[in-house]
């Protein structure tokens, strides 16, 4: 909220900044169904510094995913300002600035077209932004695939032939193609087996360090994001109700919503330990 901006080192412009971002949806079908207006974001003021690792948590329906899509330029907010690296992106979702922010979806294996080959998938952003020649793009795709731990000889295989975990790696490699500065990870680790989840999380952490990326983790699985983020913001009904460093928050959340979330997670674990 306005009273509690994220701690921000003086003089350094945050890489992501929103001012009173609002977004609503109209449900219902045209002239026949009744219309329903759902206010999904009700004034978000968020600041993310470069290199930060922020966890955005909240119950389902609290507006986390809508916020993520607005930040990545996939949806246009109704009102409010969105600044990326010190530039106002306004309402144009085709602004160049959005190449600096990339959203990785839940079950991002699905975000790869099964008919494309691995190198086509990874080089797609390059193609879209008319970068280099075909050979250069393929080269770069292969390099990126190496970065995420995929063998270079897999470049010609179709995405449909990869396992779910490998397709997630492909999606990560593609996300890195345009060298974004911010990755938004919307439930990117949900639904994975424990052993694979660890692998993916570690890969993402490594990449973050190597490339000085800013991460925005969005999840309802507290136990996981608390291990991966250093700051936390709690969302509820389209608002950010609390933000703190993870260490502080973990010792004692101030907002009732935060307390509930931590409680639920702990109750379950202690129930398990009984």
């Amino acid at each position, binding site marked *: 909220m306005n009273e509690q901006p994220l701690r921000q080192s003086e003089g350094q412009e945050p890489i992501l900044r929103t001012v009173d971002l609002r977004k609503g949806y109209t449900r219902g079908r045209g002239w026949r169904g009744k219309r329903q207006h759902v206010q999904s974001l009700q004034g978000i003021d968020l600041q993310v510094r470069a290199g930060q690792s922020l966890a955005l948590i909240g119950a389902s329906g609290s507006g986390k995913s809508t916020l993520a899509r607005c930040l990545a330029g996939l949806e246009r907010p109704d009102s409010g300002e969105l600044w990326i690296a010190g530039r106002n992106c306004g309402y144009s979702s*085709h602004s160049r600035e959005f190449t600096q922010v990339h959203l990785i979806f839940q079950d991002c294996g699905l975000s790869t077209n099964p008919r494309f080959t691995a190198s086509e998938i990874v080089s797609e952003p390059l193609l879209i932004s008319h970068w280099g020649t075909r050979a250069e793009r393929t080269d770069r795709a292969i390099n990126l695939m190496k970065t995420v731990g995929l063998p270079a000889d897999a470049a010609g295989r179709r995405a449909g032939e990869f396992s779910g975990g490998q397709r997630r790696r492909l999606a990560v490699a593609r996300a890195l193609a345009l060298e974004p500065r911010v990755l938004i990870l919307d439930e990117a680790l949900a639904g994975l087996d424990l052993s694979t989840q660890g692998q993916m999380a570690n890969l993402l952490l490594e990449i973050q360090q190597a490339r000085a990326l800013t991460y925005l983790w969005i999840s309802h699985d507290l136990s996981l994001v608390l291990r991966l983020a250093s700051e936390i913001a709690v969302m509820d009904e389209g608002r950010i109700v609390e933000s703190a460093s993870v260490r502080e928050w973990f010792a004692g959340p101030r907002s009732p919503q935060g307390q509930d979330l931590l409680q639920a997670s702990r109750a379950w674990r202690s129930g398990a330990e009984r």
Partner: protein
Amino acid sequence: MPQGSAEFGAFCPTLRPFPGAARYQMKGKLKFGLLGLVLIHLVVLGARVFAPYDPAEQHRDSPFAPPMRLHWVDARGHTHLRPFVYALVYHPESSAAVPYKEDRNRRLPVRFFVEKAIAGVEAQGAKHLRLFGVDPPGEIFLLGTDDFGRDQLSRLLYGGQVSLFAGLFAAALSLGLGVLLGSASGFYGSWLDAIIMRGAEIFMALPWIYLLFAVRAFLPLHVGARESFFLLVGVIGLTGWARPSRLVRGVVLSAKHREYVLAARSFGASNFYLLRRHILSETYGVVLTQAALLIPQYILAEVTFSFLGLGVSEPAPSWGNMLAALQKLSVLESYWWMFAAGLVLVPVFLFYHLVADALQQGA
């Protein structure tokens, strides 16, 4: 009856395959069906060579002649290498239903690759090569003749050009329109979608054939063969856009929300790029399946029209107006070979359905 099977196809784009849905079997079906269709179309296209007569050439002295049998052994028990037919003798006063008899004394050997004058232009001496024929003045009617004594086989071959290609062109027309309107409707949504889909609903609220008739009713009745062909193609093709467009819209709509489309959009891809690279490729399956369902339906539409006298008119042959002879009960009762134009539809439909089945399984 595939009439309306496209409607059902539209309704449930992936029908469950019948037993033995193994992939290789599907491919086999597809190959077999396509091969059959290609053969039929080649034969029909080559009517000028394969047909022994011109379609309008009349043999007034032998109306409703029955199909001649090919013989290798003559009346005296001699075997001939070259197949032959016996000339038919017409007994108009005979009380038999089919007043023809084979004249065992007039053996007409079948000659291959004969030069024959084109009817009507004899004066100019124009000739071209035919696959087979008999020495004049003998006549060969392998599938019999109609009431004007026109060779059924020749009419069947030339009529196929009309019937088969009317279906093909009309399907191309309505699919093209369907893809255009359906993808625009699905991709851009909002008011465009509302207008197109309301329009489609109105088109689909009419029983299909009634719609066709209604449109046909207000177009000129008596036009030349060429004009009536294009008229039919236009009418059939333009009234059939609604269902394919609804289907394409559905596919586009679901493709639009695929995560990889969203991902490409987040990289700044333009609408055109998305349509070209990701979305239209998803509609191929539906479009091909629809084609395999629509073409036979439209062939049948042409046949129905011409059968009822609203389509291609005499003397140009079409499978529909050839069947029209059967509307007389006397013809229906006695001259079974007049069914040929209907029977030839069976393999055509069978092949198209094989292809449609295979495509649906592959989908």
